[in-house]
């Protein structure tokens, strides 16, 4: 059948052409540079060497002996950091860590659904609010981790503690921005018209806290004046922290207003044209809390794990992953806690007020 023959030769030709094009493309393309150290990419990171270094040095954590079995950790991102902490902990204490890694939203949903029969021992999430709510409902075990007297005082909650934190910044795409802003107010300038993006406070706990911190520091009137001007200047509100940073990295906007800083540092390390700026008039550092569940199935292992979180070794690992450590003794990679100019706020009070403030914000600007 000549028709079939024709068809198959022409198909062969197409395949040949495709292969050739692909080969040409391959040679013309760039390649991923090894962004060593901060590649907290959940699979391809092999930092066993770094972990061993930390374990050998003077900041090494002394694990209690006679522990065995495992401990279940529900942990929010970044997963690379969680996996490295787990690895170091297993090496020191001989206890396996089962990690359920997901977003804070999925973790809290699962915690709530599992409430009658908790499966997690230790929980680490990205915002203070849900931890405070769990504490108020008596769902958190009463345990004081070993080094908790060495961390920032205001990172100590009612049974929960900040393991590490991130500062809320102005993340600037240096290719797309007309100039580098130095304060919130700069973004009300006409040159930033339609170029500013803020994570949606309805989806992002940190954006919500930032608004509440501004209100607590400056009062409602001044805060709404700022946002009136920002929204008049075409500021958009969209998604959680990740998508907002992505939209700015891609150049759809020039500045993220109030995004978490740590993911921007990883992107900068990878070579993206980004810059992190802290507002002169002050911002907030959002501590990321951990706690042990009231009915944790493996309480002893859980206690050892949270001790390790706050130890110098654990803190140094957090710092390596661009987080601000809870212990002032441990130097941060990018910006130390004391070097960030903070707004005037009290974390616990913020949680109490932030819902009303959010409602006001939504009714003013988002409906």
């Amino acid at each position, binding site marked *: 059948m000549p028709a079939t023959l024709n068809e198959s030769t022409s198909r062969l030709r197409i395949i040949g052409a495709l292969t050739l094009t692909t080969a040409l493309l391959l040679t013309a393309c760039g390649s991923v540079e090894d962004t060593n150290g901060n590649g907290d990419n959940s699979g391809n990171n092999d930092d066993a060497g770094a972990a061993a270094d930390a374990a050998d040095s003077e900041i090494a954590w002394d694990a209690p002996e006679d522990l065995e079995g495992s401990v279940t950790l529900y942990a929010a991102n970044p997963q690379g950091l969680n996996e490295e902490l787990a690895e170091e902990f297993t090496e020191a204490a001989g206890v396996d860590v089962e990690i359920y890694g997901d977003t804070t939203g999925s973790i809290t*949903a699962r915690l*709530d659904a599992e409430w009658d029969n908790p499966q997690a021992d230790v929980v680490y999430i990205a915002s203070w609010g849900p931890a405070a709510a769990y504490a108020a409902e008596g769902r958190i075990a009463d345990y004081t981790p070993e080094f908790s007297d060495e961390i920032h005082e205001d990172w100590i909650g009612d049974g929960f503690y900040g393991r590490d934190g991130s500062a809320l910044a102005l993340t600037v795409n240096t290719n797309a921005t007309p100039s580098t802003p130095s304060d919130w107010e700069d973004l009300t300038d006409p040159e930033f018209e339609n170029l500013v993006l803020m994570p949606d406070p309805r989806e992002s706990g940190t954006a919500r806290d930032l608004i509440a911190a501004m209100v607590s520091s400056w009062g409602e009137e001044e805060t709404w004046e700022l946002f009136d001007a920002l929204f008049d200047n075409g500021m958009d509100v969209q998604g959680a922290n990740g998508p907002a940073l992505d939209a700015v990295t891609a150049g759809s906007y020039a500045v993220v207003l109030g995004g978490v800083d740590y993911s921007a540092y990883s992107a900068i390390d990878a070579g993206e044209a980004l810059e992190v700026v802290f507002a002169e008039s002050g911002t907030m550092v959002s501590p990321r809390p951990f706690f042990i569940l009231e009915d944790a199935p493996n309480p002893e292992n859980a206690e050892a794990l949270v001790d390790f979180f706050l130890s110098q070794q654990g803190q140094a690992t957090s710092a390596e992953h661009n987080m601000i450590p809870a212990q002032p003794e441990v130097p941060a990679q990018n910006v130390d806690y004391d070097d960030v100019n903070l707004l005037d706020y009290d974390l616990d009070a913020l949680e109490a007020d932030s819902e009303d403030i959010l409602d006001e914000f939504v009714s003013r600007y988002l409906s």
Partner: protein
Amino acid sequence: MALTAPERRARNAATPLLILLIIGVAAPLVMVLIRAVTGHGDQPSALPELTDPTHLRTLGNTILLGVMVVAIATAMATPLAFLMSWTRLRHHRWIDVVVMLPFMTPPYVSALAWIDVTRFNGLGDQLLGDAGGDALRSIILSPFGMALVMASEVFTFLYLILRNYLDAVPASADEAASVSGASPWQRFRRIMVPLCTPAYSLGALIVFIRAAGEFGTPVTLGNQIGFPVLVSEIYRSVTINPLDFPTAAALSSVLLWLGCAVWVIQQWISRREQPFGGRARRRATVTLSRWAATAGWAWLSVVALVSVIIPYTGIFLGAMTLLRSQPISLENLTFDYFGLVLQSPSGQQALQNSAMLALVAATAATALAVGATLASARLKRHPVGRGTDLLAVGADTVPTIVMAIGLIFLWNSPWLPASPYNSPAMLVLGYTLVLLPMVVQNVKTSRSTIDDRYLEAATTSGATGAQSFLRVTLPLLMPGILAGWLLGLLLAFREVVISSLLRPGSYPLLSPWIMSQFDQGFRAEAMAMTVIGILGSTAVLVLVDTLRRRYFAKRG
């Protein structure tokens, strides 16, 4: 109710199945609905708030979106199903693969790809200029755009159901009309429409319910344009602080009623199934005029552009871009990410785990679906048959996140002596429940093409129940079984919600792995893994399709 002897046998066989479905599907839903009434923990019931204008608006949005998705999916699927079944286009097997591609793409990824293509200074602006980019953006960033993106994923259901049905329509039905002098329009209106209505209504039902329960597009595009639907509100209530479980449960019950209402309408529409009669099972073939063939190819191109080419451009660009802050150029593109994700141990494990669980779950769901279909066909008016029928599609009437939470409530209950919870078996159970409705729809469509007279003939000729099942029913059901199994496999492989909420600790799965990369800003890795998952799915699809064609070619 007086039953004949075969009906009694069918009832006895179906009762255990019904019990299984009650435990599997109904019990977890009840666990959620209880909380709609009683509240959860310290929070009171939210049922009284359902009449709030905001909730009513959300319900209105959900129905509007569902109807739009059904309309767009119909426009996309119906001509293609006809072309691929009754015309020479059916010899182009690759078209089937193209149509399946959107189904293999995780919906949130295609929504993200669309958003990326149409964003400010994105590919759309670069290719079409500012005015063109603005126009495209205003189309996509609208409820219609949401429906378009969602229809691009779900039209495959409708297409497969209609195509399989049309494949089974014997040529004689249409030819008889043609010989009697009916015009093409009359043949369409008097023969095709009545014949296809039951199959179409099943497909439309599944599309509507999927559209009402799908969360990928509503939580990305929908939230961006401020178009809340029930699913995105439920998702918000259970994942965003302050958690509000009673509201989620109350809204879920609304979705459940909506699903049941649509099911009832579908049952009513398809109340008169049309068996084809036993003779001349030759396939129908229509020769298209040149004009019609051109129009067919043009429509195919439009569908491919919307459902495959545009989103896949976004996905591939995402998977190959080195630096997002730099312009698109050859130096800024790389194939390295494919290698990187394939080498990552957790990525490999995620692929393996997802493939294995999908295989087990798709097979289990298919076995259940065959049982449920036969039971409900034999016992049409009996409560056992009706109950089986409803429960088999029950999981589709609520969004998967509600099902997942119900499953946690049930299987993590402290009073259970043993439970699959926190083991891969739990995932298999969850996937099976989620796949079941879709597999059932496919098997049922095949069942509706079987004339009961075949079975009567088998019985009269002295066949035992087992013989007539193996030699008559099973071979005739085979197209639906294969299609359902394959769809189930592909769906479970990329499933998000069950995978994300029910997975045990340190047990990587494909979609959670991809989502986690996105959330942490590793866009290229996420997109590269998506591509790898799709390539793997495509390989399976082509393999199964080849086997299927051989099987049917042998049977003639």
